[in-house]
């Protein structure tokens, strides 16, 4: 390859690196249109894992119920005022999960309460009416058969008062499907009580007087005015189509997250400086180019992270720093080979070319195991491990480019054939 071509490539690489530098550096212009996305282990926040109880739901409905539930929770979570809350579902074996991520939230316990307060409503037929009808009667007893009519069919609620007793009541409106169900259920239970459960507690069990069509139901419990009001607003935010249970949480305080971020970036910087010093002291001129290639490598890796909008987590940073430590491996392989060639009496420039040629197979082979490991880890695992694996993978792939192409181009341009 002729020298002029190498110079053009080098200028191009340097231009991209400088642009990448401006783009990724916090506070520089890149932040304006694409800010860093930081994981909640770095900015503080909560990662909540709920289990969705789909045992009462027909298999065909499962998907729509889970999706509906996600929407309801998302609407609630959006009211918390955290930026970009994440609500998503995941299937794990036979059970469905709902995962809520609230980065930067201040009061986690309040958020958990609010999410948990999303009402779960269920109508149940009564088989054998219990005598001691109290507020603590739960659905688990044998006297009730749950119907298909649940909060998922509720489209709105309103607060009303009984004309005679002034008792607060909650008026529920069902959607068409729910109205049809309600009509069927009331028709089948004329003269019998119909139990209404809210969050698994029996609220009321009025005797059905007639078939009710039109999709309006009225719940008269022993609500105080405030309870009724809270209930109405919760129903309007959406009722849960299936009950959920908190089975795992991870909460990181903002100060711990900030400390982790600054400490680890500092550590990465020190580690990088040590590598650069080592390379320059041990390999002299070659080492200097390897050091520049390393800096370009770091900039490019960060650029890829930012362009792909990958959320930066502590694990990801650890993966990147680790890959920085490995990135010069290719250069070391090449330089050791080059030194051998020079010892044999080969001129410098051909020695460099020979070093690259001979080291290439080793470089390719040696990176394959790390690539395999990180791909497997990425696809199988979740959370910390996944972020680490992704960073390691991206890092190793880019390092093959930087250590070979970038270093070789620089050496081609600057090596004088003595």
């Amino acid at each position, binding site marked *: 390859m002729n020298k002029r071509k190498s110079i053009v490539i080098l200028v191009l690489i340097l231009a991209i690196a400088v642009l990448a530098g401006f783009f990724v550096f916090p506070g520089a212009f890149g932040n304006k249109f694409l800010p860093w996305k930081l994981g909640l282990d770095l900015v503080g926040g909560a990662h909540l*894992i709920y289990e969705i109880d789909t045992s009462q739901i027909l298999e065909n409905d499962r998907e729509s119920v889970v999706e509906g539930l996600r929407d309801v929770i998302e609407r609630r979570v959006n009211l918390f005022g955290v930026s970009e809350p994440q609500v998503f579902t995941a299937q794990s074996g036979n059970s469905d999960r709902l995962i809520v991520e609230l980065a930067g939230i201040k009061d986690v316990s309040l958020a958990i309460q609010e999410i948990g307060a999303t009402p779960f409503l269920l109508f149940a037929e009564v088989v054998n009416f219990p005598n001691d009808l109290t507020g603590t009667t739960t659905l688990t007893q044998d006297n009730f058969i749950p119907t298909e009519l649940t909060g998922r069919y509720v489209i709105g609620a309103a607060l009303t008062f009984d004309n005679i007793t002034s008792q607060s009541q909650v008026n529920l409106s069902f959607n068409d499907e729910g109205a049809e169900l309600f009509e069927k259920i009331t028709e089948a239970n004329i003269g019998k009580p119909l139990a209404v459960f809210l969050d698994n507690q029996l609220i009321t069990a009025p005797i059905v007087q007639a078939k009710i069509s039109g999709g309006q139901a009225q719940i008269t419990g022993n609500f105080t005015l405030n309870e009724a009001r809270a209930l109405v607003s919760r129903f309007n935010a959406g009722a849960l189509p299936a009950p959920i249970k908190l089975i795992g*949480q991870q909460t990181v305080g903002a100060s711990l997250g900030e400390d982790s971020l600054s400490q680890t970036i500092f550590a990465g910087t020190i580690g990088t400086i040590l590598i650069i010093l080592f390379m320059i002291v041990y390999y002299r001129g070659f080492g200097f180019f390897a050091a520049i290639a390393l800096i370009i490598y770091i900039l490019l890796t960060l650029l890829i992270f930012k362009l792909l909008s990958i959320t930066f987590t502590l694990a990801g940073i650890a993966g990147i*720093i680790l890959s920085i430590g490995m990135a010069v491996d290719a250069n*070391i392989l090449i330089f*050791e080979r080059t030194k051998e060639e020079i010892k044999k009496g080969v001129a410098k420039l051909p020695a460099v070319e020979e070093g690259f040629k001979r080291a290439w197979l080793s470089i390719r082979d040696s990176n394959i195991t790390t690539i395999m490991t990180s791909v*497997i880890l990425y696809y*199988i695992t979740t959370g910390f491990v996944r972020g680490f694996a992704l960073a390691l993978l991206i890092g190793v792939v880019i390092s093959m480019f930087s250590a070979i192409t970038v270093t070789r181009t620089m050496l081609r341009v600057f090596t004088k054939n003595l």
Partner: protein
Amino acid sequence: MNIIGHKKIYLFFAFILVSASVASILVFGFRYGIDIVGGTLWQIKFIENKVSAEALNQFIASELKVEGTQVASGSTESLIIRAKEISEENHQEYLAKINSEFGAIEELRFETIGSVIGQELRDKAIKAFILVLFAISLYIAFVFRKVSRPVSSWKYGVVTLITLFHDAIIPIGVFAFLGYLYGVEIDINFIVAVLVVMGFSVHDTIVVFDRIRENLKFGSSSKDEFNAVVNASVNQTIARSINTSLTLLFVLFAIYFLGAITLKYFILTIIIGTVVGTYSSIFIASPLLTLWRRR
């Protein structure tokens, strides 16, 4: 360096380390992290008063009546509580009680992993572990598929697997010991760190073996000459092996001493693995090869 000539010393040293690790695992066993067995990890910092780990531990045992809890000092004067799974209601209740007893606190971290999720994470980690081992073995078989003289190619593969075992068992043994001494736990991150170490170690060994095969192309196959070729090959790659590990160790030590405390044991595992992996690729892999050749 006459590595092959002194191979008995190097192999004996490795044998001692591996035996000690196996003994450590058998004697001390493992302490598992909450991401494997489920449980709660709670890190708090007292703002008003200085509270010792013992005082908090006693309070939790006697007042909150939580059993099997452990309190340890964390970074920046915080305390880390490890317990069985604490529900959200209990969490709030305990928080209020600790608050009224010891004054204002800041919650740095609260992690609860139910046994269901613990089980899932464990299954995933085991699956990943088996797959990675399988992939690495396949890769080794692929790399050494070509028949070479005077040592048949599958022997290279077996030796690589032996060094792999060496590199994995020593960090595991060290962590069993640390678990006994300081309560250090084996968690999912540890398993991942061991996998990463195995990946590094394999390629280190492959670089040395590649060199041996390259040099063998030109030599004859008498025993003495074979030993000489192997010794020369190890010496040709030794600078590369050590330098590569050194640059990796620079960043690892930087994170270990300066980085986030949550990464500490993850990084320590990789540090131990990198050191023993470098040792094995220089002082175990090639000597084993010449030992085998003799028979």
